[in-house]
């Protein structure tokens, strides 16, 4: 990953208003290489809205998001980020392999090959299975496998542990640790307690 050490994600005085309700304002954070930002807060406190602002889907009502010092739309941000949201973003009528091939074509080649990534998320035997025959947890793993096959340094994960079993959660935690140790960054929301002992985790409470 080029220039990884210098790149960082900054939020400056972010504010989000939804239906005349101020979800958060004057929100500032800075995330640099190797760090995890964990967003905490009740339902409806604006965690997902903040993530969608970070993805550029939503304009912040005030403030700005900076990547390496530039506004995200004027930088190489989209080559460096990957997002897994509430929706898995996989097509049910395609096989696991076909889904990942499309994801790979839409991004740049990353650290792992598709076969390696499927093995990592323990779906190696399911590459020819239609996604609609997979369980919810397996579909979740498949969408997380997308993070491994494409080149990216920032992962934005919205409730990544939803419908995963205990092994799945441990697996994703180990993937996040590995990613951060290689200089990556993770922003995530989670209701589960996460165990990332060797990683610098910043917690931000939205209320």
């Amino acid at each position, binding site marked *: 990953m080029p220039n990884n050490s210098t790149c960082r994600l900054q939020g400056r005085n972010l504010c989000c208003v939804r239906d005349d309700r101020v979800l958060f304002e004057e929100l500032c954070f800075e995330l640099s290489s190797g760090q995890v930002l964990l967003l905490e807060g009740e339902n409806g406190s604006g965690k997902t809205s903040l993530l*969608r602002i970070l*993805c550029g*889907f939503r304009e912040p009502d005030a403030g700005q998001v900076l990547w390496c010092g530039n506004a995200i739309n004027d930088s190489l941000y*989209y080559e460096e980020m990957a997002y897994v*949201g509430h*929706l898995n973003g996989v*097509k049910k009528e395609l096989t696991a392999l*076909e889904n990942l091939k*499309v994801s790979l074509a*839409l991004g740049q080649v990353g650290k792992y090959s598709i076969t390696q990534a499927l093995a990592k998320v323990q779906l190696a035997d399911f590459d020819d299975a239609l996604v609609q025959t997979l369980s919810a947890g397996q579909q979740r793993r498949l969408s997380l496998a997308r993070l491994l096959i494409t080149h990216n340094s920032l992962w934005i994960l919205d409730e990544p542990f939803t419908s995963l079993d205990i092994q799945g959660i441990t697996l994703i935690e180990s993937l996040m640790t590995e990613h951060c140790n290689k200089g990556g960054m993770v922003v995530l929301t989670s209701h589960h307690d996460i165990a990332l002992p060797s990683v610098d985790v910043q917690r931000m409470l939205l209320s």
Partner: protein
Amino acid sequence: MALFYAFIAIIRRDLLLAVRRRSEIANPLLFFILVITLFPLGIGAQPHLLQAIAPGIIWVSALLAAMLSLDSLFRSDFDDGSLEQILLSPYPASVLVLAKIIAHWLVTGLPLLIVAPLLAVLLGMPTQSIGVLLLTLLLGTPVLSLIGAIGVSLTVGLRRGGMILSLLVLPLYVPVLIFAGNAVEMAGSGLPVDAQINILISILCLSVVLAPWPTAAALKMSVN
């Protein structure tokens, strides 16, 4: 080059999806055939009347079939989150959107072209105008997909966007309908149709260049 691969990958994916859920191809095509075959039954034994209005019947049916198929353009991608992933790709969203529109046309527009000559014969259209009919469909149906994409991208986030979609899109379809219908009619009387065809070509070129931009922008708003 990488952009070209992404473009091809989207077209391939959408064609594969269309093959896996066949109703997407069959629906507009069946609708097109059904509407056209109902006209002779409704009008009765008046072959001259039928022959006279054949270009209109075929084009109006093609237009409605295109309208009917529009919603499937972005709906499933919107519902399962694939659209977010397409928009987050480092490649320009407008190019990827164009790939989706092309795939959509191949699935819903091209089959109309294949059955149109048969239906034209059924309606008693003169032989010399069937070639022109095909040419107008070849030039016109992609325009329907391209213009329709703008409308769908604006309404895909709404729960009941169907009505608004037709109000938005149908007026924009009118020029295509006028020029294409007119060209087929003129060809039937043996008159030259270069002017109408040229206008259709220019409408197609304009919409290929101009439609993907607002579509991509509106999709970004819709996923918000």
